[in-house]
């Protein structure tokens, strides 16, 4: 069992159901898929064992008697094949006959289902079992306290393509979070690394342009950033403190906050940054302005948008707006799990005004994009690598779970800056992929991601064995 809590939603659990009649499990399969499970149905023990050996499921549900065996013989077979003996087996006792009950009572199964499968009952049983191995895979081995953690980090390939007066722009295959904090290492050894904080993204044909505010850059590498080619992303940024902005260049924002005093004070602050805000404490008014002149608005700020009747009505109203006219939204929220996109940027409360300004600026860039402003294409730049400090929480049959201080978007491809595991894992795939990422409840800036080293083909068992033995050898060598 894991020594740290694993977020229940980051792991997609695979369940193998072995039945004599496929249709018995079809309803359950549909039901479980709603709960982040994937279900493989096998119609005999032979097929079941093959699937178990190949996919290393997190649960097995089997009928007590199968066409070519029984739950007991399945139990005995797996018992001889560690680590497959870690998989909890739930036995379905269909007819509840004495013979059937006697048969299943001979082994220590994890749970029983009496009679036909009730999806609700199965979900409850699975939830109980999941708790017993900390929401992770049964093959999960905690590495949280191992001493290598200081050396572990996530590496993402990128190209530093240019700069504007305010932004440093890199191209990569991933989107970077607004709260990102990471080191960018240029491949050129003469150039020094930089530390960046905060980012937003522009996406064009599967390529992501990661935009980093230059004022958040730290480290001596800032000097080489200034030598990159100039790019034109339009006038997304307000002028320097001693410059005056022309009226056309000023940004137009609708500012919604139920707290009038706060709203007015923040609008006054934004005004000093040449962001002209129309304040309102009424969502209907927000929509009415958008309906009249959405194309003049560079961003809509909403301080908390919940699920009240008014909020829902507003969300529905938004759908009525003409395609492509809706400006980007910046939403302040207390939710830790809200994820930003090009259309909706979330900023977590409480926040500082500089963070708010950065978030507005990012929205303005997105607003320019939707208005077909200049886009960075065909730019050649400096090869670089994002280095994100991470903690490896544990390994499992497809990869493992890691922890970072900001969200890593699902789909992010990466390698790891820890040779002991990189060496083993690179035999399975050139890069590894984030498959799920969630924040830990009641802990700010702690995000857990599950990642895949192996997907599709390749033996999960061999990967798991190789990772485990490599880590064991490394730990002993310390």
């Amino acid at each position, binding site marked *: 069992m894991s020594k740290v809590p694993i977020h229940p939603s980051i792991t997609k659990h695979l369940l193998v159901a072995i039945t004599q009649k496929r249709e018995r499990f079809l309803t359950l399969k549909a039901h479980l898929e709603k709960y982040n499970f994937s279900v493989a149905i096998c119609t005999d023990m032979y097929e079941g064992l093959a699937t178990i050996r190949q996919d290393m499921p997190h649960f097995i549900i089997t009928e007590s008697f199968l066409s070519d065996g029984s739950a007991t013989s399945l139990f005995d077979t797996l018992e001889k094949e560690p680590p497959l003996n870690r998989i909890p087996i739930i036995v379905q006792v269909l007819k509840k006959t004495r013979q059937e009950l006697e048969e299943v009572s001979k082994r220590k199964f994890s749970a029983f289902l009496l009679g036909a499968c009730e999806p609700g009952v199965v979900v409850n049983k699975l939830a109980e079992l999941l708790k017993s191995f900390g929401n992770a895979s049964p093959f999960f081995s905690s590495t949280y306290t191992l001493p290598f953690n200081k050396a572990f980090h996530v590496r993402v390939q990128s190209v530093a393509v240019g700069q504007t007066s305010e932004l440093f722009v890199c191209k990569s295959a991933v989107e970077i979070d607004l709260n990102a904090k990471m080191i960018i290492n240029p491949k050129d050894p003469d150039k020094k690394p930089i530390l960046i904080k905060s980012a937003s993204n522009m996406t064009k044909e599967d390529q992501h342009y990661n935009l980093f505010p230059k004022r958040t850059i730290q480290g*001596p590498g800032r000097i080489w950033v200034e030598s990159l080619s100039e790019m034109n992303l339009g006038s997304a940024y307000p002028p320097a403190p*001693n410059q005056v902005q022309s009226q056309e260049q000023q940004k137009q924002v609708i500012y919604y906050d139920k707290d009038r005093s706060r709203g007015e004070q923040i609008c006054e602050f934004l005004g*000093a940054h040449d962001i002209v805000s129309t304040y309102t404490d009424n969502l209907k008014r927000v929509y009415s302005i958008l309906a009249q002149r959405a194309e003049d608005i560079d961003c809509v700020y909403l301080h908390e948008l919940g699920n009240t009747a008014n909020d829902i009505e507003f969300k529905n109203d938004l759908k009525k707006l003409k395609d492509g006219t809706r400006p980007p939204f910046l939403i302040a929220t207390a939710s830790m799990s809200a994820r930003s996109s090009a259309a909706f940027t979330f900023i977590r409360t409480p926040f500082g005004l500089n963070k708010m300004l950065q978030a507005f600026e990012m929205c303005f860039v997105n607003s320019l994009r939707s208005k077909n402003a200049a886009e960075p294409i065909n730019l050649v730049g400096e090869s670089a690598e994002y280095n994100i400090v991470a903690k490896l929480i544990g390994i499992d049959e497809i990869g493992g779970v890691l922890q970072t201080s900001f969200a890593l978007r699902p789909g992010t491809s990466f390698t790891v800056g820890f040779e002991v595991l990189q060496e083993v894992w690179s035999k399975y795939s050139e890069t590894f992929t984030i498959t799920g990422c969630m924040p830990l409840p009641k802990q700010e800036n702690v995000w857990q991601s599950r990642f895949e080293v192996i997907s599709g083909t390749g033996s999960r068992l061999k990967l798991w064995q190789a990772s485990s033995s490599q880590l064991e050898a490394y730990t002993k060598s310390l």
Partner: protein
Amino acid sequence: MNRACLCVNLDSNEEHISDFKVELTSFEGEIFAAHTKERSLAYIEDKNLIALIIFTNQWTQEIDSVLHSFQQAANPNPEHIFVVSLENDPSVMKGCFEYGVEQFFGAEGWQESVSNIITSELLPTIEQDSVQLKLQQVGQALKTADQKEIGELSKELEEASKYDYVAAIARGKLLEATGSYEDAEESFKSGEKLNRTYVPAIQSLCETLIVLGKTEEAIPRLEKLEKMNKNSFQRKVLLSQAHTKTGDLEKAKTYLSEAGLIAPDDPKLKEAEVAYLISNNQIGEAMKKLDETENIGHYLASKLNEIGVRFSQNNQSEKALVIYQKAHRAVRKELKHKISLNAGIACYRAKKYSESMKFLQRSKAEYGSAYPKLIRVANSVKKAMAEGGKS
């Protein structure tokens, strides 16, 4: 080196604040908790603080003073300051923006996040990054006014000030302390360019611009900042000084009154009032008020030097010396050597050579060594004495 953390909650009582000591469990250094401004300032002065954690839901002038002192004396880097706040109060947001503080946390879960940042980011940086280590030393160097250390630190931060805005501002302050205002201006401008929303960079630059008489550059910057937040005492004082310098005494007085409403007891207010009275030719009153001030900064020090020089050049050395004597008591430690030098020059002009030499000796001791201008003046005094001049 053992590092400590200071938790400040000015809304709380002592019993409650002691709870914080157990909350930052993963931080291995000492944790101090304060519930009054005075105690907070004492910890900032005495302890080797790495981080400041402020608990507040509303901005007060006392919190402003604590933040100001922490950045001046302990660490100028805003990343070493954390704010735990239940809600987004605009006064807290604006107040923190004045100091570049951006690390906000809600009441739930702040402990682990703050502990993590301190232990895994701030501590290793301080220990491994020479620039961060130097930044921690700036406050102490300015406090002791050790010109040798100030000079060395300024040299060591020169490269970093090209890419690090906090280093650029720290270097600017060091350069100011040596009297190199033009170089300080350049360093502050570099800080402003590196981070155009960092208020301490802009205000420090404006302070120097005012001393240099470049009010046409300082006033628009300050007015723009004033639009963002009308409750900054420091800025009202700077605006008052800038307008005093331009001769717009009416505006200067308005800002002075507004500053007085925000922090009537702040010593900086008296300092600005003295400058205003001098410009309004109320020298007598100004001198009386000067006796009530201490730790006065560059602007008033330069103004006092200016009127001293004027008296001395008009053969009113006695009057000049009275001003220098009062100024010497009141100015910050790093500015005293200049007052002593000017007093030496006033005595030289009045042909009081022995007295002049005494002031020059004092200036040398305050500076830490002889410096070019002092050597030039001392040579002139010696020459005059050798030619038979007696005091």
